[in-house]
C-alpha cells in the first residue's frame, strides 16, 4: 500500500512538472466538505473567507435547515424555542460563494479522489474534508434499533427525534418514570446526557412533579459529575436516580414494545425511554476506509489530516485526535486549523502552529449554568490538553447566572462563526 502510494505520488509530481501550464489553465483547487455542522460549515466558511476566491469549495449536507445539537437540551427544558436552533446555508452560498449541495455523500474513491452522492453525482476533489458527526453502533443496547427509535428515541442528532422526545416527556403519565440509557465513552458532548437529565427534571418539576428520572449508565464516572449531583440535590431533590456499572448497568437491554428496561436481569417498567447508544464516526468515514477498530478516524493533530490518507481531513466528533471532547466547540476549533493547513497546501498561504480550545457550558436549572474547558496543542502523538478549568461546586448565584448568559453569547458567536 505504501509502495503504491509512494509510486502514485511520484508519478503525480512528475506529471505536474510537464503539465504546469495546463494546471494553471485549469479550475481552482477543489475542496469538498462533507457535513455542514460545527466542523464542516466552519471549515467551508474559513476556506472561502481566507482564500478570497482561490479555492473552489463544495459543501455537501443533506438537510436544508440545520438544527444545532448544542442547545437542543435547552429546548427540551423549555428554555429555547425549536426554531431558535434552526440555521440555513443561504449566507454560505450567497456571501461566501460556497457551492452548497443538499445531498448525502455515499461513496469516496480515494484513488480517483472523488465523492459520490446519493443522487448519483460524482464530485472530484483535491482535498476532502469529512465532518460527518456520529452514527450509532449496532447492537450496543440489545433490543434497540433504528426501527424502535420512534418508541425509544435517541434524540442525539438534533431534529425530529428531539421534538419527539420532548412530546413524550410532556405527555408522560403523572408520576411516571423517564429512563435514560446513557452511552459508554467516547461519545458526542460528554456532559450532554446529564444536562438533558437536568432539563427534563426542570420540565417535570413544573408539569409533573411526582415523576421520576432513572439514569442507567455503563460508566463509572462522567463529566462535571460533582456539579450535576450538587445541582440535582438542590433543584430536584429525590427525583433523579442513577444506576452505574456496579449495579449491572453495563448489562442492559430494552424491550420497546413492552416499555421495559432489563438491568442485569431485573425488569423495570418505564414510561419514556431515551436510549443513547454507543457511537462511532459518521458512516461515510468507514465507507472511505479511514476508521480504526473502534470506529473513529485517526488524524494527524497538526493538520487534522487522516492518518490513512493525506488528502482527507477529518473534523469533530468523527475524528480520533486525543484529548479533546467531541463537541461543537471542538469541531469549530479543529476546522480553523484544518482550513489553514488546506490553504497552505493548495495555495501556498502561511501555516502557523495549530492551537485548539474547547469550552462546554451546561444548564442545570434556571440561571444555574456551569462550564468546563481546556486548551490544547498538537503533538505528534495526539492533540494534548495543556491547561483546563471547571466551574466549582458552591459558586454563588450571580456567577452561575453570568455563566448561563455567557453560554447564550457563545451560541450566538459560534453559529455566526459557522454560518456567517
Amino acid at each position, binding site marked *: 500500500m505504501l509502495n503504491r502510494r509512494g509510486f502514485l505520488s511520484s508519478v503525480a509530481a512528475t506529471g505536474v512538472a510537464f503539465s504546469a501550464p495546463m494546471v494553471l489553465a485549469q479550475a481552482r483547487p477543489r475542496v469538498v466538505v462533507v457535513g455542514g455542522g460545527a466542523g464542516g460549515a466552519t471549515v467551508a466558511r474559513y476556506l472561502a473567507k481566507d482564500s478570497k476566491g482561490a479555492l473552489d469549495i463544495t459543501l455537501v449536507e443533506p438537510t436544508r435547515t440545520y438544527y444545532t445539537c448544542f442547545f437542543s437540551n435547552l429546548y427540551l427544558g423549555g428554555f429555547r424555542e425549536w426554531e431558535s436552533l434552526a440555521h440555513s446555508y443561504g449566507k454560505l452560498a450567497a456571501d461566501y460563494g460556497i457551492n452548497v449541495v443538499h445531498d448525502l455523500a455515499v461513496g469516496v474513491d480515494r484513488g480517483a479522489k472523488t465523492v459520490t452522492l446519493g443522487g448519483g453525482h460524482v464530485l472530484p476533489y483535491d482535498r476532502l474534508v469529512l465532518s460527518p458527526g456520529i452514527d450509532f453502533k449496532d447492537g450496543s443496547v440489545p433490543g434497540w434499533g433504528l426501527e424502535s427509535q420512534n418508541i425509544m428515541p435517541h434524540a442525539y442528532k438534533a431534529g425530529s427525534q428531539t421534538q419527539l422526545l420532548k412530546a413524550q416527556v410532556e405527555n408522560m403519565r403523572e408520576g411516571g418514570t423517564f429512563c435514560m440509557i446513557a452511552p459508554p465513552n467516547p461519545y458526542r458532548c460528554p456532559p450532554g446526557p446529564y444536562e438533558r437529565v437536568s432539563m427534563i427534571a426542570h420540565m417535570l418539576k413544573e408539569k409533573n412533579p411526582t415523576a421520576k428520572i432513572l439514569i442507567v449508565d455503563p460508566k463509572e464516572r462522567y463529566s462535571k459529575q460533582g456539579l450535576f449531583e450538587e445541582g440535582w440535590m438542590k433543584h430536584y431533590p429525590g427525583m433523579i436516580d442513577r444506576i452505574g456499572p456496579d449495579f449491572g448497568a453495563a448489562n442492559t437491554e430494552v424491550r420497546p414494545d413492552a416499555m421495559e428496561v432489563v438491568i442485569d436481569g431485573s425488569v423495570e417498567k418505564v414510561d419514556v425511554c431515551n436510549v443513547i447508544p454507543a457511537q462511532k464516526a459518521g458512516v461515510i468515514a468507514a465507507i472511505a476506509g479511514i476508521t480504526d477498530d473502534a470506529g473513529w478516524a485517526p488524524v494527524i493533530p497538526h493538520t487534522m489530516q487522516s492518518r490513512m490518507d493525506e488528502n482527507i481531513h477529518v473534523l469533530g466528533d468523527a475524528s480520533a485526535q486525543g484529548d479533546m471532547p467531541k463537541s461543537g466547540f471542538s469541531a*469549530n*476549533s479543529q476546522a480553523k486549523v484544518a482550513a*489553514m493547513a488546506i490553504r497552505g497546501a493548495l495555495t501556498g498561504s502561511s501555516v502557523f502552529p495549530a492551537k485548539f480550545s474547547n*469550552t462546554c457550558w451546561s444548564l442545570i436549572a434556571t440561571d444555574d449554568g456551569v*462550564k468546563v474547558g481546556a486548551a490544547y496543542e498538537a503533538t505528534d502523538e495526539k492533540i494534548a490538553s495543556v491547561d483546563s*478549568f471547571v466551574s466549582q461546586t458552591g459558586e454563588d448565584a450571580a*456567577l452561575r447566572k453570568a455563566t448561563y448568559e455567557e453560554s447564550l*453569547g457563545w451560541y450566538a*458567536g459560534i453559529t*455566526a462563526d459557522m454560518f456567517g
Partner: protein
Amino acid sequence: MFGRLLLLAILGAGPAAAQGLGDAARGAELFGQCKRCHQIGAGAVHRIGPHLNRIFGRKIGAHDDYPYSKSMKRAAADGLIWTLETLDTYIENPKSLVSGTRMNFGGIKDAGDRADLLAYLRQFSDNPANIPEAEPTATATDHDIDPAILAIQGDPAYGEYLSGECTTCHQVDGEDEGIPSITAWPAEDFVIALHNYKRKTRPHPVMQMIAGRLNDEEIAALAAYFATLDAN
C-alpha cells in the same frame, strides 16, 4: 508609623511606585478630577458614579442601589475585588480592567499620581482588614505593562488567523449579548487587558486560559486585528 515606613520601603523595592501608598494630601487634590461623578467621605451618595466610601476590599459592582453597566456586573459575577492592585489597574486605564465600563475617564498614566490618589481613597475605607498593604496580595507583581510590550507592532494578518480562537464566542459584528464585544477595541486597551488575564489580575477562567498561552507578539497581533474592525 515606623511599621508603615518599613512596609513602604519593602513595597518600594518593586518597580512601580503605585504598589505602595503615596501622599494622601496630594491625592485629595488629584481627586478633584473625580468629583464631577464620585463623592467620598461623610454623607457621600451615588451621583453619576457610585460613592467610593469603603471601596477597598469590597466586591466590584456591589452597591444594590447603583445601576452598573453590563460589563461591571459581569466583573462582579467573576468575583473581582477592589484591592490596591485592581484599583491601580482600573485608575490607570479603566477599560483595560472592565472593557465596557461607563466610566468615561482616560486614566492616570503616572504611577506616583495613582499612588497618591489611592492613599487618599484608602482613608475612607475604615475597616483595618481592608487596608491593602496588610494583605499579601499587596506585594504582588507590578501590574504595569512593560512599555516594550506595548510598543510591539502587531501583525493584523497574523491576528486575523489567531482571531479564529476568539470568534467562537466574541462576535465579529460587535454584538455583545452575554459575551463582551472585542471588535474595534483600541489596541493598547486590548493588550493591557490580555496581559492582565495572562497574569490573572483580571478574573475569568476562560480568558485566563486563552491569554495564558498567547505570547507578546500574538497578543499584539490580535490587538492590531480587532482594532481595525468596524462594529455594525
